């Protein structure tokens, strides 16, 4: 059974796709880990800000496409959760390193 027909559905994504992870093939010349962390942080922050503005528009009565709002809310929640998990892991790794006996 070919899945080509199902691939065609991907062309109908009207909602902005979620933040895709960057797969940099070359770890030596690509952006540093710190750079990637701060980029990711900035993107999550931007998404949260957009969500807040959408909610404010909703409160004032400005027309907001409801399905986009709900999807963006859920994406914000998931990306915030992911960011917090990454931060927790990084902190744990750092603490592990601090505990190492020289």
């Amino acid at each position, binding site marked *: 059974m070919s899945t080509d027909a199902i691939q065609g559905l991907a062309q109908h994504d009207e909602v902005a796709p979620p933040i895709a992870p960057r797969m940099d093939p070359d770890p030596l010349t690509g952006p540093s880990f710190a750079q990637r962390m701060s980029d990711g942080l900035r993107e999550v922050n931007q998404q949260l800000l957009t969500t807040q503005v959408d909610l404010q528009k909703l409160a004032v009565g400005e027309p*907001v496409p409801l399905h986009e709002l709900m999807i963006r809310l859920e994406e914000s929640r998931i990306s915030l959760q992911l960011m917090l998990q990454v931060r927790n892991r990084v902190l744990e790794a750092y603490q592990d390193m601090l505990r190492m006996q020289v």
Partner: protein
Amino acid sequence: MDYLQTFAISAAGMAVERTRVETAALNLAQAHTAQSADQPAFQPLRVVATGAEGFGGLVRAGLESVPLPSVTVEPSGVPARLVHDPGHPLADGRGFVAYPGVDPAREMVTLLGATRAYEANVAAMNTARTLALKTLEIGRST
């Protein structure tokens, strides 16, 4: 489209249908009222519902601002129905009594059509409401 606007659209449609029903009921009620010489004659009323622009304009505008139907009630200008009844107190010189030119069959058909259209508008509104409430369930804990 703004989900709130769909309610306004359905409400406007229901108002049009309700006006149709009221007009038809009024016409039927007045169908057999004889008209005397010193009273202004009752003209059966007709409802004229117009959309603000044609369908082409709607498609061009892209459903951003949807024109709502507007309704005016005006006399239909149908000539009076003359019935020969010399003994009637309101008969004119030639023995004819004038009744409003109301066609009961047409009014009944209008009533049926307006009822169905009203129900259709209610169905549209209920569907819009269900869709909006379902949209709220996106991301609800599974």
